[in-house]
């Protein structure tokens, strides 16, 4: 493990009962990367990122984040996690949701308000601060959910299928936002099953049935398989 490593997954296996979800995963994610976990549904992507977020622990092996073993409450303060579900309190307003979650990170007063306003502005939601989340559109909910995972200025952001069900324009602006965050030093881990989204990552791991079948930059994966597109590359690795 280098000193620049944000995540180090060491021989991690996970099973629920007799069903093996993850099998002997080894993976290093460097600081400042936009790392993509690409694979079909059921490949074990969510299980893996939940472990990195501290929500689950491996049956075998260890996960290290920032050089310390997960799960740890101390580390969770430095991580932002956004699940597939928007996980918002629909009967509360956007502001009430934001205040609630930011106070779980110990934020309060002026700093809390400034951070909320700054992020809502960035996501173009400033006008909807006092609106009930139940009245939000799907895209607005997703953006609000993203804002919540960023409130405490995490060093690492874990996003489980962040742009599913989002229109192309919004998807583009969210990705631009990811690039900006990344430039400021935030490590981003994204799960996806969409190829063109995977192509935007700086490095990728291809997952299938709980195994990492290949990893590298999008270019190197295409080169190794002598293919034109990531999709073809994926088929080469996954074709059994």
């Amino acid at each position, binding site marked *: 493990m280098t000193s620049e490593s944000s995540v180090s997954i060491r021989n991690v296996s996970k099973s629920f009962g007799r069903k093996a979800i993850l099998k002997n995963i080894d993976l290093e994610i460097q600081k400042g990367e936009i790392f993509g976990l690409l694979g079909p549904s059921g490949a074990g992507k969510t299980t893996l990122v939940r472990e990195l977020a501290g929500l689950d622990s491996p049956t075998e092996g260890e996960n290290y984040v920032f050089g310390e073993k997960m799960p740890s409450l101390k580390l969770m303060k430095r991580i932002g*996690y956004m699940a597939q579900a928007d996980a918002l309190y629909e009967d509360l307003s956007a502001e009430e949701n934001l205040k609630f979650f930011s106070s779980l990170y110990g934020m309060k007063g002026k700093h809390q308000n400034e951070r909320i306003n700054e992020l809502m502005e960035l996501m173009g939601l400033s006008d909807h601060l006092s609106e009930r989340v139940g009245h939000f559109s799907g895209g607005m909910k997703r953006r609000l959910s993203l804002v*919540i995972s960023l409130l405490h200025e995490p060093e690492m952001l874990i996003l489980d299928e962040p742009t599913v069900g989002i229109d192309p324009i919004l998807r583009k602006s969210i990705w631009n936002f990811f690039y900006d965050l990344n430039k400021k030093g935030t490590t981003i881990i994204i799960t996806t099953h969409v190829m063109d989204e995977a192509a935007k990552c700086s490095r990728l791991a291809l997952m299938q049935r709980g195994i990492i079948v290949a990893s590298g930059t999008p270019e190197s994966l295409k080169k190794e398989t002598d293919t034109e597109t990531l999709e073809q590359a994926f088929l080469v690795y996954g074709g059994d």
Partner: protein
Amino acid sequence: MKVFALSKRILQQLIRDKRTLALLIFAPILVLTMLYLVFDGEEYVPEIGLVNIPEPVTEKMEMSDAGVTEYQNEVEAYHGVASGRLDGYIKIEGGEPLVFLEGSDPGVNSEVIKWVQSALAGLEENGKVADLELDYLYGSEDIGTFDYYGPVLLGFFIFFFVFLTAGVSFIRERTTGTLERLLSTPIRKWEIVMGYLIGFALFTVLQSAIIAWYAIYILDMLMVGVFIDVLWIILALALTALTLGILVSSFANNEFQMIQFIPIVVVPQIFFSGLFNLDTISDLLSWIGPLTPLYYAAESLRDVMIRGYGWSDIYMNLLILLLFSLIFIVLNILVLRKYRKI
């Protein structure tokens, strides 16, 4: 044929959901069995003291169907009633029989009066008894069924609704993914449980104050004791309902499965809370009462509202209720490990 396709799908779902299926069959069986055992219990046998009744008279009295104790003086008999050993006593004053009753349970009152009347019937030549003179330790002849059952029902309804709301809101927390989001922050598990506890407790104070106030001042439920003591009892009971509701909700996958716990966890408590006379409950079941929170709350509520007892008489039951809550809190924290190990 869409209708049949739909019916088929519903049946398939039902068959997959073994628990719902089991509940639909076994819950009614369980409840009916309990009702049977509760109602088909023994006849109530009153405990009666006889104060200074001359030997020749007692010999002529019909002594069956009651536990009879003879006393040399009235003070001892009075203590017997006050401590709950006796339901009442009889003395002869100026040739007229006087009956002194414990008085808080109208059902027991009438059992005692019925017994005294039939016992004294043997003494009279014509078999007719003059009107009995009655005196009461608690309450009066005006105490009605509502006064007697009111405190129990008050406790029960608060328990029921707090149990259900807490449970369902915790399920919603889980199914909408907000619990996972909560757990992805550095919050500790006990903080989640306590957060729920305090939030609901605050609401419950308001809720129970309004309901108790309404029952006592609008519905004119008998209220001898201090209002704030009633609130303490209800609050302690609500905490057990809340912690139990959240605990039970962890074993339900959706709101409907939460509802399924009502006949299992909530309804049986009614039977052992004193709504039905606890002395007549079949021995097969009587041990359940002390295991249910409502049992203690109902007893204390009656003590305060009917008998006018104060803090020193109810604090023990309050402590037991708090102990219930504490156990449920610890179990809740352990169960949350299901969702996050640390």
